[in-house]
């Protein structure tokens, strides 16, 4: 644990922001290029986690525990979101026999 605490002391803040930005962008690309609804959902999870990590980093950076409490609330919200989203996917699969997001275009008209 002590070596971990030493390790964090030399990483600049920008590198953490860069890591979160890269993972957030990977999530965005995943949402754009995949057709499987569950994989799209996993990409959204990836974006949520990138934001969580960045909030924690800023919390440590400014020595403020509120950021970590926010991350806790985001995790509770993500759990609720996953349950609802997967229920919707199951319902869509029951109605259309597919979870391809490209055939769900009836909201267009």
């Amino acid at each position, binding site marked *: 644990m002590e070596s971990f605490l030493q390790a964090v002391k030399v990483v600049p803040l920008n590198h953490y922001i860069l890591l979160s930005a890269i993972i957030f962008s990977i999530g965005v690309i995943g949402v754009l290029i995949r057709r499987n609804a569950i994989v799209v959902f996993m990409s959204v999870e990836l974006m949520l986690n990138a934001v969580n990590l960045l909030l924690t980093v800023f919390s440590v950076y400014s*020595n403020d525990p509120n950021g970590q*409490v926010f991350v806790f609330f985001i995790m509770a919200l993500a759990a609720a979101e996953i349950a609802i989203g997967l229920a919707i996917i199951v319902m869509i699969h029951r109605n259309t026999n597919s979870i391809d997001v490209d055939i769900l275009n009836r909201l267009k008209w």
Partner: protein
Amino acid sequence: MSIFYFIAFLSILFSLLVIFAKNPVHSVLYLIITFFTFTIHYIILNAQFLAVVNFIVYMGAILVLFLFVLMMLNLNKDTEPTKSIYVKLAGVIGGGALLVTLVAAIKLTAKSNPVVLKDVNLGSVQNLGKVLFNEFLLPFEVSSILLLSAMVGAVLLATKEGKPKATTV
């Protein structure tokens, strides 16, 4: 120092594998590894409570739910029709443009202090519990209502219509 860069490399590698794996089950397994690297990030930042919650809630509960739905829908085969190469290219370019914008914005903020842990007890369960149950008591209670309504909604959405006694979830 090198621990962070190694783990960051692993995070990026496995999150790329999540979106480029053909088989959805492989995607979920890669996502589990990605979340494990995030847990290691939290441990490096000495956010012990978040590390444990991330480990239990994300890796234990949410991803098992994903796998469960994949198995239930019998989607563990490569039946996904792929988008055309132009749409994929446009998606990658769009995401890349977002990344370039973010990185450029970071570069403009010239100063970058190292992330220094000032208080070792910042992320401990005791400290966070005191904050959570003093300042954030009302949001905490409201989130319990959110979870209850999410549970009711999930059961309502996923139950088959016309069969009020259906036990499938």
